[in-house]
């Protein structure tokens, strides 16, 4: 908190007014990192076949995004322009290493399940993109909020995708957690131990939804819905 206190003196305070609220709310919809900025589609789509790993990745991205923005913004006046990429990557890589070690220590099964995708948060363009576009030019408090906002916008899309993929692909919700529910279809053997579900026993799990390709279709549909509702987002080219 010491850093933010310094920021308070220099940059005009930790106010949480309308502008600051927009920093968090905007990325959730009209400036969404995935559907509008096209950042960070890469790594995490492969993990969205289940809700629980997606939730873990989302939290990790919010954490990395917020704190890397804060750190870079605090250092922004001392970073020479020519090496800024390397500096950013080192900060991000250090934060991701913290996340990785934390998961390894406290939740080894999740760690195994996510394998290389934790490391791939480093190359998640959304972290880097926000550093370059926002944190390099704004004060630490607002950069921090921007990081949180973009992390949340990213997580929201991830969870929507995961919800549909898990429900239609495996017939379950929250598999792998104590909350696990078998919602539709016949029981299955993956992480959940239920014979048949209590609803719609006739439903046959759709394996297409388990494949990563399904994530692309769902994003395309999300983009379609979003752009139909907000016509100013439509591509002109």
């Amino acid at each position, binding site marked *: 908190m010491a850093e933010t206190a310094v920021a308070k003196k220099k940059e005009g305070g930790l106010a949480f007014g309308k502008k600051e609220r927009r920093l968090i709310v905007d990325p959730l919809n009209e400036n969404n990192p995935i*559907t509008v900025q*096209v*950042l*960070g*589609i*890469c*790594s995490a*789509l*492969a993990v969205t076949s289940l809700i629980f790993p997606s939730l873990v990745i989302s939290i990790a991205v919010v954490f990395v995004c917020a704190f890397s923005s804060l750190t870079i913004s605090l250092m922004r006046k001392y970073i020479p322009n020519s090496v800024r*990429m*390397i500096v950013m*990557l*080192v900060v991000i*890589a*250090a934060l*991701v*290493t913290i996340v*990785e*070690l934390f998961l390894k220590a406290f939740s080894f099964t999740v760690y195994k399940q996510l*394998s*290389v995708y934790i*490391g*791939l948060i*480093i*190359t*998640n*363009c959304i972290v*880097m993109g926000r550093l370059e576009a926002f944190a390099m030019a704004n004060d630490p408090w607002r950069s921090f909020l921007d990081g949180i906002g973009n992390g949340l916008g990213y997580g929201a899309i991830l969870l929507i995708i995961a919800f549909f993929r898990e429900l239609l692909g495996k017939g379950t919700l929250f598999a792998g957690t104590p909350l696990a529910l078998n919602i539709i279809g016949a029981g299955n053997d993956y992480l959940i131990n239920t014979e048949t579900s209590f609803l719609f026993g006739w439903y046959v799990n759709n394996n*297409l939804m388990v*494949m*990563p*390709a*399904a*994530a*692309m*279709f769902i*994003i*395309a549909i999300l*983009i*379609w*819905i*979003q*752009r*139909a509702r907000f*016509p100013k987002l*439509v*591509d002109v*080219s």
Partner: protein
Amino acid sequence: MLLLDSFINIFLKAAFFENMVLAYFLGMCSFLAVSKSVKTAFGLGLAVIFVLGFTMPINWLITTYLLSDTGILGIDLTFLRFILFIAVIASMVQLVEMVIEKFSPSLYTSLGIFLPLITVNCAILGGSLFMVAREYNFTESVAFGLGGGFGWFLAILALAAIREKIKYSAVPAPLRGLGMAFLITGLMGVAFMSLMGIDPAALAGAK
């Protein structure tokens, strides 16, 4: 002979059966953003082959001789993996950038911001991490790097060609551009899915 066999196996596997983009969905950002025209896609694809082909063996040497507890330092430094990998990748990209700027200024300007962004192309770091996770040896890591890069190159070229054609079709306005690119990539992924699980080693044995 055996060495060559495994080289070709891993190369084919990385390029076609387990394509980085279409099977693992790595390197999506630049894949979607730079695939508007075939020409830039071609240049970026070549740059990715180059970077991937070089970083993979270098990162293999780093993990085996520097970071593992059997290496020259004798200490387990695996936790430094991410930072070192990304440093190698960033410097390779810098090198490629200088080469392209020198030999093809027009390509350099048309690639623009996406050239430095190869650094954060997940396919590159992902390749290195897969290599560690699958415990490849040196030859295999070279083959995996080149094959993965080639697969990425083919995929972005295919998508760019399709997108150039689709510009002339009547796509619903909200889907135009990005939405369509996502759909096409998804369909290509499904098509490539049918290749998955083919083991080139088994095919050679059957002959």
